[in-house]
């Protein structure tokens, strides 16, 4: 079945232009071009969609309002903003309900490529529930401890971006969100940002503070039925994996950029598990809290209940959020690099070998 893609803009010439330029996708996509937010909502009421590409500034129902509505009624959609407008207040309203923000004019080949890859990753998830779990994630859960440290660094009289960068760099929930925002054009022109520290510097206190105040980072204590033991274990495993992956990349004499990316890939290697923690906590019902968490058991619980590895789920979220390509690929293919489009990628191999090291360490500890 072809993927259903809708384009929403108040400027008919833009829609016609998109229609003409995506004519080459006519066999793969089922496309609709809708003038304005009202028309788009009306269309969605009767027709499902896989991908929404929407303008921001529109008369009547604007992009932020439309996407907020669409994210409720059609949470499984991939939601991309294509806009020349970067009005800050409006932008803040789109942060949780859209996945990426592309500035106009955009390279349509890139847009096409992004959509295609996201669709492929989406189709690899076995159930609609899992697809929704990823695409309805506005933020991954963040431990209260990390949130407090973040507050302390940003709310002091002289906010310290170094401290904030430290916090962002050591928590997978915070790191993934800030990388999403910096790699898109939400607050700026959208540049390729490799690591959380760079993203923090790029966004600055002016943007980070309102993000925190508006609750753009999800506190783990607000997640109902969260299995705290599994969550805490996942976070600590992410932190140690970051170090292991960066070390593995260094040992393989990768470039500085690749080492940084490997570290980020390590920190984000189990964001799929964090999605499950927040969206499908019953998955871990059989994992007893209070005892030593065995990662193998957790993985088995995921396979059994969801029929899916957390890596596929995490890889999909990373793609949705427009994280660096190498990180997306490493997360998705960490256990089987040979299946990746580029099996020899240094970041992927570093994460794969870090994973081996961690497994070896665990079996040693068990023995």
């Amino acid at each position, binding site marked *: 079945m072809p993927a259903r893609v809708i384009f929403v803009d108040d400027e008919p010439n833009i829609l016609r232009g*998109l229609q003409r330029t995506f004519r080459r996708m006519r066999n793969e996509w089922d496309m609709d071009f809708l003038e304005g937010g009202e028309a788009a909502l009306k269309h969605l009421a009767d027709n499902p969609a896989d991908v929404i590409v929407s303008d921001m500034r529109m008369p009547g129902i604007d992009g932020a309002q439309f996407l907020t509505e669409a994210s409720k009624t059609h949470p499984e959609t991939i939601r991309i903003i294509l806009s020349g407008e970067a009005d800050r207040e409006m932008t803040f309203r789109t942060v949780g309900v859209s996945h990426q923000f592309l500035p106009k004019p955009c390279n349509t080949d890139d847009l096409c490529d992004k959509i295609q890859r996201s669709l492929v990753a989406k189709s690899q998830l076995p159930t609609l529930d899992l697809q929704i779990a990823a695409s309805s994630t506005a933020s991954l859960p963040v431990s209260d401890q990390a949130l407090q440290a973040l507050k302390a660094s940003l709310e002091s009289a002289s906010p310290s971006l170094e401290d904030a960068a430290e916090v962002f760099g050591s928590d997978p929930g915070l790191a993934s969100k800030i990388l999403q925002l910096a790699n898109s054009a939400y607050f700026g022109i959208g540049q390729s940002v490799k690591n959380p520290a760079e993203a923090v510097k790029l966004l600055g206190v002016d943007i980070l503070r309102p993000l925190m105040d508006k609750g753009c980072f999800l506190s783990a204590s607000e997640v109902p039925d969260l299995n705290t033991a599994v969550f805490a274990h996942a976070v600590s495993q992410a932190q140690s994996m970051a170090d292991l992956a960066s070390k593995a990349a260094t040992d393989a004499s990768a470039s500085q950029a690749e080492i940084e990316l490997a570290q980020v890939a390590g920190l984000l290697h189990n964001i799929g598990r964090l999605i499950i923690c927040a969206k499908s906590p019953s998955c871990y019902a059989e994992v007893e809290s209070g005892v030593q968490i065995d990662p193998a058991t957790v993985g088995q619980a995921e396979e059994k209940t969801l029929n899916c590895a957390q890596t596929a789920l995490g890889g999909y979220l990373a793609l949705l959020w427009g994280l660096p390509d190498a990180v997306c690929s490493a997360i998705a293919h960490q256990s089987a690099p040979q299946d990746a489009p580029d099996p020899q990628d240094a970041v992927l191999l570093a994460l794969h070998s870090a994973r081996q090291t961690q497994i070896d360490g665990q079996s040693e500890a068990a023995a």
Partner: protein
Amino acid sequence: MDIGTLEKRLAREKAARCEAESLLEAKSRELFLSNKELLKASQTLIGQSQQLNAVFDQALTVILLTDADGSIQRANRSAEMTFGREANKLKATSVYDLLDNGSREAAIEMERQRDPAKKFTTVGNMQEMVGLRADNTPFPLELAVSVFELEGKRHGVWICRDITARKEAEEKQLRLEQELRQAQKLESLGTLASGIAHEINTPIQYINDNAHFLKESFEDLMSVFQAYDVLLQKADAEEQFKEQVGAVRANAESADVDFLKEEIPSSIDQTLDGIERISKIVTAVKEFSHPGTTEMTAIDMNQAIETTLSVTRNEWKYVAEVETAFEQSLPMVPCLPGDINQVIMNLIVNAAHAIESKGGDGLGQITIKTQHTDNNVEISVTDTGCGIPEANRGQIFDPFFTTKEVGKGTGQGLSIAFNIVTQKHDGTLSFTTEEGVGTTFTITLPASPAAEMKAETKEAV
């Protein structure tokens, strides 16, 4: 003579003496009293005179008493200090010699207008003139003169005040106002530019989409054309289609189909090329103007320079070729992006102007380098222009210093750049230059935030 007579005479004489003595005493007393009063009056006069002298000398205004010809008869201390000459040298000097040529005539005219019939003419409005110190250094002063007659002789009282300090304060104020105006102008230009950039982006999006569409669909059409060509060749052989085939061929000929096949794709390619350039410029303008960023933000300096180069392209493309030598592993630099963009822009524009004023036939060369040294990022802009003459080297960072012709520059560029780099970013801005060969300006910015740097230096101390 009998005793009686003698006694009488004696008595008479005694009385006369007594009378005389008392008269003397009375007169003496009178004299004494009047003397005492005189003394008192004279003391009062001395006191008053001292007071007047003190007022005259201590007055913060210059007071000069002249005769009818303007020759100074008396000068106060303020006059000595202001004109830098001793009292005895001032005396007999003409008051007009204390003024520069232009002011001298104005002062003569002013003095002439005073009506000597009116004694003690009220001091008119102070007029601004130029005075001369002992070494003939000119300085601004305010001056008024009153004319009066004393014992039938005409005199003048000249009052003036050195207004150098006030003038400096006024100039400083003016400069600040101008800087503010400049900043406001740039800010509103930035807002305007980003607004325009946004307006342009929408049409660019669909022009680009349409051009892409034309390119692809023309290729599709051409493949259909090829199939038609095969059909046409087959029809050639058939007598019954002769007329139609002829008509098709004639049509194709008059439409110049072969030319279209060649030129349509290349015209579309050129269009796409142009669109790409426009969108690069628009993105650059948007990025460059960064409205509202008043906070230190980390930026990729190499990219910022590229942006500035495309925004200023028009300023340099006819005079110079630009070469960039960027260090690829440059760390992000925390800075005020708008300000730093402005600094780089000023340096690039200056480089272009330096090359332009050197003249010559060929294009000059502007080289922009970035490199990472210790904890700093260094950006250098080198031109092959006229260089800076020795005499001007000390002044180039002064506000309003310019060697450019009127209308070409406000003389603020380098001064603003210097202020931004050193004051706002804790960096340095320096240059090396050789006349006729060229100039290199080098900006050094701390790669890590200033606060951290300061903390480190404190620890080191």
